[in-house]
């Protein structure tokens, strides 16, 4: 633990978000307001907060699927706030993404979906026609092996279970050999067993391949169990940022506090009982 902490202190900055704001349109409230975050290489960060707090928007701003209205993004020493075209695609090859609904091409095989992770490195024609080199295929099989998917390589993705689909989703991201992986609610549609398995895979990938992870989560207990650091977002603002093991009950209360509608607070607090009790359990065990 201590050595890892030291390593992280020396580790260089990978991503720096500076005063990022996003408004989808002028009449609505801002989705993000003055978000500033710095993520160092090798970190495993969980972002938690109520639904609609802006977690998804934040992730999509990082790989520029959504363009922020204000603020600066520096990734791997390069300001990527305004890069476009080829330069933007090159940035994206270094950032993998994992989705709540897996977002696979369901009618294609597991292998093909994993190979999609290589598209950003290929020429337009070879990529569009799906011509992959033998080396790329061998690499894909290596990664499939890593995620326990080798036997399913030629299966259509539509035939897989949710947990298997998500593993394909992670394998596709791993195929990119990214520096950073963004996970948007990766376990929200999964049963507890699959959820744990997916979190284990993410954590292992983080540790063995040294890939930095930013994971949006609904489950506070998973965040505490797996993350190095927890960032709390509420109503588009960062309201908490600290080591996961040091998070307190009142921090969670602040993160999940409803800012727009006072009457909903009570409902929220009852909904929280479970994660909170789990949190206490984890704290005692740890």
């Amino acid at each position, binding site marked *: 633990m201590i050595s890892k902490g030291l390593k992280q202190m020396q580790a260089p900055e990978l991503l720096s978000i500076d005063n990022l704001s996003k408004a989808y349109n002028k009449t609505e409230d801002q989705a993000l307001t003055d978000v500033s975050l710095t993520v160092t290489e090798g970190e495993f960060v969980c972002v938690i907060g109520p639904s609609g707090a802006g977690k998804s928007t934040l992730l999509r701003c990082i790989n520029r699927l959504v363009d922020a209205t204000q603020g600066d993004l520096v990734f791997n020493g390069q300001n990527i706030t305004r890069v476009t075209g080829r330069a933007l695609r090159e940035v994206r090859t270094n950032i*993998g*993404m994992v989705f709540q609904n897996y977002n696979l091409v369901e*009618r294609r095989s597991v292998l093909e979906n994993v190979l*999609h992770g290589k598209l950003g490195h290929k020429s337009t024609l070879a990529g569009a026609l799906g011509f992959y080199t033998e080396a790329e295929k061998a690499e894909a099989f290596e990664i499939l092996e890593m995620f326990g998917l080798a036997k399913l390589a030629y299966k259509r993705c539509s035939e897989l279970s949710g947990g298997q689909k998500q593993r394909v989703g992670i394998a596709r991201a791993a195929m990119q050999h990214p520096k950073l992986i963004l996970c948007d609610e990766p376990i929200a549609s999964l049963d507890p067993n699959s959820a744990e398995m997916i979190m284990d895979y993410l954590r292992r990938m983080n540790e063995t391949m040294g890939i930095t992870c930013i994971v949006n989560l609904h489950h506070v207990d998973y965040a505490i169990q797996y993350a190095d650091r927890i960032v709390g977002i509420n109503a588009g603002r960062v309201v908490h940022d600290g080591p996961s093991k040091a998070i307190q009950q009142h921090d969670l209360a602040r993160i999940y506090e409803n800012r727009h509608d006072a009457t909903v607070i009570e409902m929220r607090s009852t909904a929280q009982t479970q994660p909170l009790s789990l949190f206490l359990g984890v704290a005692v065990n740890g």
Partner: protein
Amino acid sequence: MAKRKRLNLSVLGRRNISVGLVVLVLLLIVELSSQATDFSLADGLTSVPTALLWMVTHLVPTAKSLTNLPDILSALGQTILMAVAATVLGAICALFFSLMGARTTSPSVILTRAARVVASFFRNIPDVVWTIILLFSFGQNMITGIITLFFTSFGMLTRYFIEVIDEIGSDTMEALRSTGANYFQTFAQGIYPSIIPEVVVWTMFMVETNIRDATLIGILTATGIGYVFSLFYTRLDFATCGLIIVALAVVIITLELVSSQIKKMIV
């Protein structure tokens, strides 16, 4: 117990009264409009057996009408080919326009609007009107019919394809864009394989409707099975007309069976 029963009955009674009122009003409307249009329900109903009898005696193909079968089949083939050619052409153009028109794949908002407006223009002018307009420039021949069918199927299919792409494509689009893939790669590897079953199904459906419409348009443009039908009809050769109807029905039903098989194969 007894009390509740009585209560229920009273509710039912009230409902019966209101249903009765509605029926009464409807009957009144029917009666008034019949009088206004000189329509007699009794005469209408009694003429149904006569009409059926006429159809049985006149429209049933006779041995003599079978001698016209080669002409009918070649005209029918012409109509089918016309419908297929127009639909395929329309589907290719529609695929391109729907990529521009769908929100998930469109390069710009202006193109989205433009593609939708163009498609709606071609779709909302009825095919008969298109034919009459095009007759001036192209005359009575196959080209007029093909262009008419092309216009309408292009308009319809663009609309269907836009919906398909927006429904299926957005997640895949997001996933592949996030790997750093460019537009063509995302389309070819992500959007295309996801939408192709729906695209084929809609195109097959369009071929079916176009064969029916081509028959009608053929009467105006003097081509295909529609023209042959109108010829025999004006000669009062109803047996041959019946044969044409049977042939058309066989083609449409066969096509439906084939397309449902294809659907099963690709989905």
